[in-house]
C-alpha cells in the first residue's frame, strides 16, 4: 500500500509516499527524511526526547503516526535557528549549561519553546520545573534547564513589551 501525505517541516514542503502505515512521525523524521536531530529515548511517550511542535503545539512524535500528519506544520530542532543566529532558547541552553550529553536536549528545547509560547510558566521557577517535567534528563541538567527557560522566557516577554514608555503608568521607562 502507499499513502501520500504532504506536510511542512521547518518551513519546507514535503510530499511523502508512505509505504507503511505503522511509521511514526519520529521514525519518519529520523529514518526517512534525514532529520535525526529529534531523538528517540523510549518510543513510548515517557521521556520527551522526541518532542516537536505540530501546528505550534508540543507533542511526543513517537506517539504520532506519520499518516495522521497530512497538512501539518512541523517544527523540529533543526528548524529553530535562523541561519547562524540561534533561537534565544538555544542560546540560553548553552549559556546556562543546560545539558551534558545532549541527548535529551532537542526535546527539552522544543518543549521550552512551546512552553514559552503558551505563556504558562511566567517567571516562576516552580512552574517551569513542573511544566518541563515531561522531559527526562538522565544526566541531571535540570538546574541549567530551569535557568535557561526562565531567561529565555524573560527575554521573550521583554520583546513583547513596547519599546518606549510605560503604558500602564504613563511614565517614561527611563
Amino acid at each position: 500500500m502507499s499513502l501520500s501525505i504532504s506536510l511542512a517541516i521547518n518551513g519546507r514542503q514535503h510530499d511523502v509516499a508512505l509505504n507503511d502505515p505503522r511509521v511514526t512521525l519520529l521514525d519518519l523524521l529520523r529514518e526517512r527524511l534525514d532529520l535525526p536531530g529529534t531523538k528517540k529515548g523510549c518510543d513510548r511517550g515517557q521521556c520527551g526526547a522526541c518532542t516537536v511542535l505540530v501546528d505550534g503545539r508540543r507533542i511526543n512524535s513517537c506517539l504520532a503516526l506519520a499518516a495522521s500528519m497530512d497538512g501539518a506544520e512541523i517544527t523540529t530542532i533543526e528548524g529553530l535557528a535562523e541561519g547562524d543566529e540561534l533561537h534565544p532558547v538555544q542560546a540560553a541552553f548553552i549559556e546556562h549549561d543546560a545539558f551534558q550529553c545532549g541527548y535529551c536536549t532537542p526535546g527539552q528545547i522544543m518543549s521550552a519553546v512551546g512552553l514559552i509560547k503558551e505563556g504558562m510558566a511566567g517567571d516562576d521557577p516552580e512552574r517551569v520545573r513542573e511544566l518541563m517535567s515531561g522531559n527526562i534528563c538522565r544526566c541531571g541538567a535540570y538546574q541549567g534547564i530551569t535557568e535557561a527557560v526562565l531567561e529565555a522566557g524573560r527575554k521573550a516577554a521583554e520583546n513583547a513589551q513596547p519599546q518606549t514608555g510605560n503604558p500602564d503608568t504613563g511614565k517614561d521607562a527611563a
Partner: protein
Amino acid sequence: MSEQMSPERMSPETQTTFPRHVRHGSNSGQPVSRRDGRLKVTGAATYAADNHPEGLLHAVIATSTIARGRVRSLDVEAAKAHPGVVEVITPANRMPLHHDPNEKMPPFGFRVEVLQDDTVRYVNQPIAVVVAETLEAATEGVRLLAPRYEEEDARTGLDNGLRHEAQSVGVGAPGTVSFGDLDAGLKGAARVTEGDYSTPPQYHNAMEPHAVVAEWDGDTVTIDMPNQALRMSAASYAAYFGIPAENVLIRSPFLGGGFGSKAILNGPQILGILAARQLGRPVKLVLTRAQMYGPVGHRGRTWQKLRLGTGDDGKLTALHHHSIGATSSFDDFVEPAANASLMLYESPAIRVEHEGLRLDIGTPGPMRAPGEASGSASLEIAMDEAAEACGMDPLAFRLANYAETQPGTGKPFSSKALRECYEQGAAAFGWAGRPLEAGTMRDENGFLVGWGMGTAVFPCPQFPAEARATLRADGTALVETGGADMGQGAWTALAQLAAESLGLDLDKVEFHSGRSDLPDGGVAGGSGHTASAGQALSNAGGDVIARLTELATGDPDSPLFGAGNIGVVAAEGRLHRRDDETRSQSYADILARAGQKELVGTGKSGRDPASAEAFAMHSHGAVFAEVKIDPNLMQVRVSRLVGAFAAGRIINPKLVRSQYYGGMIWGISFALQEEAVADRRTGRIMNADLAEYHVPVNADVPRMEAILVPEEDPRVSPLGIKGVGEIGVTGTVGAIANAVWHATGIRVRNYPIRIEDLLRRR
C-alpha cells in the same frame, strides 16, 4: 562558533566559589561554555543511531521473556514471510565467531549472549535477531517469532539464590579486607550500633539507548556506537570477528549518556555487527528501552550489615561492613559496596567482607560510583545512627572520626580538603543550630522538616592514555586523542588543557576525539578521563613546545637564539625569553624559518608508580540535605541540597558544577526513586520503562548549590586533576536518608525510601 568559546560572564555564585587555579593568560580554569554546545542545541551533534548509510538494513533483537530455561521454538517462517524481512538470525544459522562468548575477554569483557545456543539465563537476553528493510518490518518480525520456552524456576532473591564467598569484587578488588582486632574493638566499645540495609537493582538508563550501525568492507568494519572505551572495544570486536584490531574503526563522537553501561562489551552490539557481516549490508540495531533492562549491565542489588562500635568519646572502636551482592548465574560482578568503609573514617579495627549471590539476572556491572554509592548509602546512615546513640551532632561525630591517614593502612592522603568541605558546606547550608532530636522542625505549611548530611568520597584514578599534538604552519594546532564525551564535557575541558600546554588560545586549537583510530584516549570511566587523557594531551603539547624551542634557540637569526630550553615561555602563540619577554618569536615564524610545515608532538599519561604506592588518593566532599514531608501523605520532597567538593585542580568550573549537580540528582534518585522491581515468580522486571522505573524529573529537583573547594595536589599527577564525575552521588544518598529520619524519627534502611515505609511506621 567563537561566542561559545569565549569565557562566560561570571554569575555572582561563580565568583564566590571560584577556585584559585586560574592561570593568567590561560584557558584552563575558566568557566568556558561547551565547545559542542552549538551542535547539541541545533540537533547537529551526531549520535550513533543518527547514521544512515546507503543500503541500510534495520535489525531488532528478540529477547527472552523468561529468566531461566531454553527456547523450544521460534516461528522463523512466520517472521520471514512478513514483507520486508530479510533474515532471521538464530543459534541455528548464526555465523561462527572467533571468540567463545562464554569466555571472558580480557581485561574487562564479560561473558555475553550472542545466540551461542538456546539457553536462557535471564530476562531480556537476546534469543534471535530479525533483519529487515525497515524498522517497522523488523519490529513486527520479532513479534511473529512467538517464542516458546522450556521454563525452569527462576532464582530471584536471598531465599533461592546461590550464595558464595566473593574472591574479588567490582573490577578485581579483594573481597575481604581486615585491619586491627574487630572483636576486641566491639568488646571494648561503650556502645555498638548495628543494622541491616539494602539497595535495589538500578539500571543506568542513559537517555540514548545502546545502538550500533555497522558497515563492513571486506575484512574491515566501521562501527558507529556510543562507547566509553574505544581502543579496548575495537580490540575486543576484532577478536570476536577474527580480524586485526586496526581493521575495526569505532566512531563515537557523542554519547547520549553512559554512566558505565557503555564501557563494557555487550551481546546486542556484537549481534548488530554480526548481522552486517552475515548479510553483507550495513545494519542498524538499536535497543528498545525495555531491552536495556538485562543485557547491558546494571547496579547489582545488595544486602548489607553494618556494626559500629563507639567509645565514650564518640570515636569509632570498630567498623564491620558486610555486603551480599547479587550477580548473574554465569559471571561475576559483585558490587564492591563494603569497600566504602575503607575510605572514610578512622577506626582501630575495620573489617569489610563480601559475598556474591547468583540469581537468574543479566550480569551487573559498574554504574556511576560502583560500590561507593551503595556502600556509602548504608555507611552514612550507620554513622548517623552511631552519632545519635552517642548523643552527638552528625557533623561533629564525623569530625571526631576524621581519618587523617588512610584507614587501616595509615598511608598519607595525596591531599584531603574534606575538613574544608564540611566547613564550607555546613556554612552555606546553615547547619549550625540544627536540633539533635528528630521530628522537631516544621515549616510554615506544617510540613515535617529534616536536615541530614553525608560524606562524599571517590577514588581518583589516572589511566594510561596517549595523545598527539600537531602545530601547523599558520600557528594553529590540531590535538587528538581517542577519548569519549558522554556529557562530562571532555571536548571542552580536554581542549582547554591542550591549549594551555601549547600556549595557544582555545580557538586556535582544533580538537579531535571519539574515534578508535586516534591515539588511545583510554577509558572514560572511574572519573578519570580528564586526569588521564588530559595529562596525555598536556604532555603532547609540552613535547611540541620543547621541539619548537629547540628550533628557535638553535637558529642564529632568532631573537631566542641561545636561550636554551629553560629560558623560554610559551604564550599566545609565541615563544618569549624568560628573562626578557619582549624578545619573542611567533610559532608560525619559527616553523617557517626552519622550513617545516608542521611539528608533531606526542604524550602519554599514567600514574607515577612511586606516588601510587606512597599515597592514598581520593576526591572528597560533604553533602547537606533538607527534606520536607507532608505529615498526612508522608511524601518526601528534597527542598535543599548543598554539596561542597574538593577534587584537586578544576579545569572548567562551569562543567564541573554540572557534574556535581548531576551526581547529586543521582543521589536523590537513589535515595527516593530508583528501583527495578522483579516479579518473584518469573524474574521479569515489572517496571522496565521510563514511566514506572522512576528517575527524577525537573520537578523532583530543588535548587542546588555545589561549592568547589580549592585543593592542590601535585602528587596525583603533574596537572593535579582528581575527578568529579561520580563523587556527587555518594554523600547525597545518605544525607537525604538522614534528613528523612531527622524529619520523622523513622530510620528507613532500605533504599529507595518509600512513602509506605514512613506511613507504616508513623
